[in-house]
């Protein structure tokens, strides 16, 4: 972190999308995914992923909060006294979350109802505080923005995968549109397909995240641990 800060000071003129900056954007998508590698933000991955649509709104909310939070904190990082930095960060995050909450209430009331308390709980999302502490406090505004967007996208990728699996197998729909035709379903008298009720329960989200981690660690060479 400190070395990153030092190098960014050294190179005053740097291309906006230099390789290093792109790495900030790309790394969290796979190699350093906040959910599957750092195992942060799991609670919301379990709570809001029953359907794709609310998860998408949740991802957008987190994207806004992490990106803007990183920008604001990075901009004022030199004025924040070190001893009260957590509270300063919290104030910024809380403000941003309140904006997201109010916007959702105004323009997407259904989603706001569905996400209920979990919008407010973005404040406690470990990814938000994690990026502020680990990156924005020591880096300039532009890299911080990229880092925030990258991490929020990494979070979103996992959430959307989990939500897609859960909605298709739990309700037979995607984004509310029926995928598995209702003629295939079992009725009182005939056998047929039945929705998997376990998909609607939070434990299954955890198991799906586990499968993603399993696949990722099996395929991504950087994550394969050396046998002891």
């Amino acid at each position, binding site marked *: 972190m400190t070395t990153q800060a030092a190098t960014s000071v050294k190179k005053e003129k740097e291309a906006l999308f230099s390789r290093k900056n792109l790495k900030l954007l790309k790394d969290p998508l796979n190699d350093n995914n906040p959910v599957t590698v750092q195992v942060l933000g799991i609670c919301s991955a379990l709570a809001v992923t029953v359907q794709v649509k609310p998860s998408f709104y949740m991802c957008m909310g987190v994207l806004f909060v992490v990106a803007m939070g990183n920008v604001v904190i990075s901009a004022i990082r030199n004025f924040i006294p070190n001893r009260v930095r957590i509270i300063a960060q919290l104030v910024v995050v809380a403000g941003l979350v309140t904006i997201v909450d109010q916007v959702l209430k105004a323009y997407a009331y259904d989603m706001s109802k569905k996400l209920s308390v979990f919008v407010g709980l973005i404040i406690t999302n470990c990814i938000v505080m994690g990026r502020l502490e680990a990156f924005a406090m020591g880096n300039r505004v532009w890299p911080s923005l990229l880092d925030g967007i990258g991490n929020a996208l990494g979070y979103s990728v996992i959430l959307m995968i989990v939500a897609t699996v859960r909605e298709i197998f739990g309700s037979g729909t995607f984004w509310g549109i029926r995928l598995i035709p209702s003629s295939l379903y079992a009725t009182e*008298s005939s*056998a047929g397909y*039945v929705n*998997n*009720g*376990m*998909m609607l*329960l939070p434990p299954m989200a955890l*198991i799906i995240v*586990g499968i993603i981690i399993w696949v990722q660690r099996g395929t991504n060479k950087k994550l394969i641990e050396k046998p002891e």
Partner: protein
Amino acid sequence: MHKILRNLFENKLGPLFHEGGKWHKFWPAYDAFYTFLFLPAEKSREGVHVHDAMNLKRLMSMVIIALIPPFLFGMYNTGYQHFLALGQPAGFWDCFTYGALKVLPIVVVSYAVGLGIEFAFCIIKGHPVSEGYLVSGLLIPLVLPADIPLWMVALAVAFAVIFGKEVFGGTGMNILNVALTARAFLFFAYPSYMSGNIWVSGVPAEVNARSGATLLAQAADAGFLGHFRAVNGVGYDNTFWSAFVGLIPGSIGETSALACLIGGFILVWTGVGSWRIIVSVFAGAYFTGLLYNLLGFNAYMQLPAHYHLVMGGLAFGAVYMATDPVSAAQTNKGKFVYGFLIGVMAVLIRVVNPAYPEGVMLAILLLNVLAPVIDYFVVQANVRRRLKRFKTAAHVQ
């Protein structure tokens, strides 16, 4: 036959699978079949190795033998309940054939899917195939209702073998009982197929409506009391023995406490199952049942304590599930605690939450998770005791 097989395996197929052979990748599969039929080819050659005759293969075969009584009885009872609900007179063989036709496909699916996954994992990882699934594959059908769709069985088996066992490292490493993991998966994934008015096989909806009060009562009271009311009207005075023998609706193999006890005797007599666990499960359930009788706020609490021992899956769970040597507590004192708490939790869940009549399943899974903690405290207590003894001895010197 033996010679032909041996020749086939050792001379024809063997070289293909050995080191350097064409199919060496599939060595674990070959090895599994070979050691299943014959003695292991690899023997220790040097050093001192004292082997007990009791290896995993014999242990598992013994459990299979002990499972035969509830298995056969389950097939008979499936048919018996079917013809009873339809009001048709049927002989012993009618009942047994009907049940066998219902039960055997489930067993076939369970083994095909479970062993398929197990073999695939062993080949990928290069492990030898072990016999763990032979027992799980028979246990799973016995804890399911006879009318469960076969694709659900396949899905549950796949889930249980992969997430109950293989992710933890295969046979012997699982935290949870594999068969109960499969049942729990179905219970939460497809609740309408695992609870309510589904325990009597092959009864169409219109027959349910025609037979009136009894089955309606069962539908309204889907708990385990419903089983009794459905079969025997309102009261449950003379049903203790029918429940003990097992002529009540329920999962295929779990209804008969008698068959489970016969299996339990086989397990205890051969030293495979732990009598400590079996006895303490029954003790825990009886004790909790008595405690609720003293409270007696509602019909569930007033149910005589000894009924808890013969109803639902308690006997089956105590004998075959709780004694699973992998997921149970390992220390002798721990086994008493583990079994007792299973009994307590099973009756607690049954009585306090009638939505989960199968409290036994949840109780055993919960205690599977807690078993290492129980063992930890038993071992620590022993360490403390010996440390104390050592210190006082040192002090005297």
